């Protein structure tokens, strides 16, 4: 009786709605992306100390934000699915995970490529980068668990429990790694101290983050449609050819 509370909760009703929204979000992501790149390369001034290599920040920081944000959204959908027992919520959580993991990989790789020119080594055991690495493991664990369980409904509910445990642990892991970093190395090597935050840099990062957000919504909607098709394979309405 909850599922008709908001009729989008039923996968069949949501399928066409998602279809219409994808292009809207896709285009806004593209436009914002172009604007962000323009700021990143043509508006942001050269940094006094790091020269041009700091321009990686316009990808690294938004990706790191998105990797955290998407895990929260994923855990939100998953928790909703667990409480309301609506199938679409579980599917949305599954749809978000790969994109969140992708942004985590992007954040890590760009962190490596930024670390090399700036500190001479690719992998920097910096608190944020290390926490980002373990965030990737949380994503991989979530996806691996859902992949390993055959029954979709059990997979959704097990994944939801794991995501909720994970979301509580993310700040704890981050704090403990931060504590560990100050204990062992002192705060000398740290990506957190970005170069002086000129207004344009902040603007560039925010625009890129917004672009990444729009992109994530578009991609997740597309993926949730694929999941709906995959799951409702034998449901009658799929065979009746509604696309």
């Amino acid at each position, binding site marked *: 009786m909850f599922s008709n509370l908001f009729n989008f909760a039923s996968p069949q009703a949501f399928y066409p709605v998602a279809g219409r929204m994808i292009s809207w979000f896709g285009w806004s992501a593209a436009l914002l992306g172009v604007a962000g790149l323009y700021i990143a390369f043509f508006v942001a001034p050269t940094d006094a100390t790091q020269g041009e290599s700091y321009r990686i920040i316009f990808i690294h920081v938004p990706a790191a934000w998105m990797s955290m944000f998407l895990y929260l959204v994923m855990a939100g959908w998953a928790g909703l699915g*667990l409480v309301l027992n609506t199938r679409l919520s579980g599917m949305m959580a599954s749809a978000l995970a790969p994109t969140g993991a992708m942004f985590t990989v992007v954040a890590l790789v760009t962190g490596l490529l930024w670390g090399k020119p700036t500190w001479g080594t690719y992998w920097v055991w910096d608190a944020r980068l290390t926490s980002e690495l*373990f965030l990737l*493991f*949380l994503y*991989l*664990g979530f996806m*691996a*668990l859902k992949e*390993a*369980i055959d029954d979709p*409904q*059990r997979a959704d*509910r*097990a994944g939801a*429990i*794991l995501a*909720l*445990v*994970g979301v*509580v*642990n993310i700040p*704890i*892991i981050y*704090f*403990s*790694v931060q*504590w*560990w970093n100050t*204990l*062992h190395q002192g705060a000398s090597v740290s990506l957190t101290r970005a170069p002086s935050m000129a207004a344009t840099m902040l603007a560039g990062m925010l625009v890129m983050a917004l672009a990444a957000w729009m992109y994530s919504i578009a991609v997740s909607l597309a993926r949730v449609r694929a999941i709906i098709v995959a799951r409702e394979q034998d449901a009658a309405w799929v065979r009746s050819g509604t696309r």
Partner: protein
Amino acid sequence: MTAAIVLVLRRDLLVALRRKGDALNVLIFFVIVASLFPLGTGAEPGQLRAIAAGVIWVGALLAALLSLPRLFAADLADGTLEQMVVSAQPLPAVVVAKIAAHWLTTGLPLALIAPLLGLQYGLPGDALLVLLGAVLLGTPVLSLIGAAGAALTLGVRGAAVLTGLLVLPLFVPALVFGAGAVTASLSGIAPGPHLSLLGALLAVSLPLGLWATCAALRVALD
């Protein structure tokens, strides 16, 4: 509530007593893992002392991980797990008892033997004491979070490895504070803050691990 806990705890300890091999093997595994590292890193005293806390703690994590399937898998197979879930005893009590039994047969022995390995690594007296305290405080966290992982992967293909993939990232705080306490006492810093953070971690892991394990068991037996 406590009657239920005592009932299930006594039963699990009785079963563990009748299968002494399981707990013993985990302990031997822990000692072997800790003894392997010097063969790789070289036995230079200063270096050994530096890596001791990390090696012993990671060994404890892996040993705890190794013993997690024992928590529910056997009971699922012979049908006793579903009897406990559908019984007159509250599920949280059953889960608390099983986690306590797991800690008593795994975490506690690991903690008692850790100082011995600390000696092998040349840790001074007070560091050994801190090591004992840290492992005593940290291993319940491993049992609590580990139980949630074991329940989530119950009856799933490749459950042993998958459990590791799920819970090892969640063991990071315990590792950082646990090993950090020993390293701190080695370099003359009071380990107090680390141990209290470990205690705080345990306080968070108790309700979280319990909720997650109960929910996961209901999902697994659905």
